[in-house]
């Protein structure tokens, strides 16, 4: 139980990731796959945040007096996550756009039927 208590955020992050991976790998619907992609990214973002997080930490603002540098939350992961989210948005937007086009061509979103390119 103690393990669970200390690592619940990691479990959450990886849980999200695995759900996402499962969706990408197994779901037939393209939109669901894209959502799965979102899940994966979210999980990773969560993971990144957790890495830099310190319990009861403060914001890393050095100009403000009275804040203990040792208890500051690492700002780098947050910067990373911000970048990652931006990238993620771009990818998802592109993916959805492509999905719409694909629907226009195939009249379906079932990836098992979208197999014009193979072998």
């Amino acid at each position, binding site marked *: 139980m103690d393990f669970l208590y200390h690592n619940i955020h990691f479990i959450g992050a990886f849980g999200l*990731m695995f759900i996402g*991976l499962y969706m*990408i790998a197994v779901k037939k619907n*393209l939109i669901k*796959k*894209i959502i799965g*992609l979102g899940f*994966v*990214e979210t999980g*990773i973002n969560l*993971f*990144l945040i957790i*890495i*830099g997080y310190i319990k009861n930490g403060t914001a890393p603002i050095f100009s403000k007096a009275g804040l203990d540098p040792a208890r500051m939350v*690492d700002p*780098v*992961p947050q910067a*990373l996550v911000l*970048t*990652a989210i931006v*990238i993620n948005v*771009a*990818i998802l937007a*592109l*993916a959805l756009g*492509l*999905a719409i*086009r*694909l629907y226009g*061509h*195939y009249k379906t979103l079932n990836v098992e039927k*979208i197999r*014009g*390119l193979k*072998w």
Partner: protein
Amino acid sequence: MVSTVWQNPVLLIVVPLGLAFFTPIIGLIRKELVKYIPILGMLFNLTLSLFLLPKVLDNPIIVSLSGWKPPFAINLFVGPVGILFSILISLVGLLTAIYGINYIKKGAVEKYHMLFLLLLTGATGIVLTGDIFNLFVFFEILCISSYALVAYNQDKNGIEAATKYLIQGSLGSAFILLGIGFLYGLFGTLNMADIARNITTVDSPALFIAMALFITGFGVEAAIFPLNAWLPDAHSSAPSTISAILSGIAIHIGIYAIFRVLYTLFGFNSIFTVLAVIGIVTLLIGEMSAFRQENIKRVLAYSSMGQMGLIIFALSIGTVDGISGGLFQIITHTLSKSLLFLCVGYMVYSTNSMELSSLNGLGKRMPLISLLFTIGVFSLIGLPPFIGFPSKLSIILAGLKTGETLFLILIVLMLLATVIEGVYFFRIIQILYFKEPDKEERFKTPFTLLFPVIILGLLIVAIGIYPGLLQEILDRSAEIFWDKLSYIKIVFGG
């Protein structure tokens, strides 16, 4: 370190990036101007890279952004490898851009050129950066623009290929990000030199998992065997200019990323043996899949896959000779495959079909293009006097030099794959020259389409006859690429 502003390697990234953002704006003013912007940017990059080359050969240049010293800020590591890649990128970019003047006419032209520049920016960024997260960002720039460019034609195949590419590619990127997370968790830094310096202090499974994640993530772009399913689709469905860029540059960048991470961060370990095997498997699978293809661009795409396997094998031999051979093979493949895709682009454009049978007798209808295509093919098979021969020779030499039985077996397999490659490529040559054409009329090729192809062909022959041109650069690059300690030393000064 940098004497004048115009010699600053940062410009290699900044100029194309800036031009990319300006492109749509200029497009608003005059649409015709747009297509010359990439040429401008790449010309600049090429000149600058060539100018920097002799300098970095002696000692690599470190550029720290915003004045901070390396561990604390994003830094660029402008070594011979980076400049070599940068030259390749700008050369192929330039030639493809010239080719694109007459080739890209339909659709959102200014967006095409913007994405094109972004793609090249991303590629240049990856090879120059010294920061792992920065590498990821540039990688994403490269990937996203290539997803979009694959779908540029907006036809059924293009969209489908782009979607598949996107899903696999973004999964790969996610893995990379996860790997970066692991590394950051372990070391608390993102500077590659810094991580490399401390990596021996940590012995954790997370380290290995991070490595596996990096290999898998970059491997999707680098087309390692089970991760390369997107490649034949994307390369065959994209516009031929983009196929040339993807095949000539993008996948090599993936390989560069893998091996930069492996060499610099993780150092040499047993994973290289696995990678060598995987490389040969990739080679075999690629060539075998290409064997029965009836679609010319798919043949070339599968062949790219095979070549990737060869390069991975060469780089995983783990000696300076091997790396030098691998880099040589990268040059070979960049030149030859871009040449082939550009030639095929024109053939497909003229005959309106990608079937091999539609190439019947093209040797008579477009003699020059066919001749150059033949040169490219011979070079890829590794026949003298073309560039493919010295590169393949040095790979085999390096592999046999290790004296290990495993490498001997792998090289035998590699030669078998070469046989298969030879057979299907020679079959295409026969189709070009020794089948009766359906029609007799000859095609008139515009100069802008012909010029890049001729340049590539000349380079292939010239280096093939006198490989000494490149040898010094390659050896020096290989040494620096390989040597982890000197990398750290150079980055931290002293």
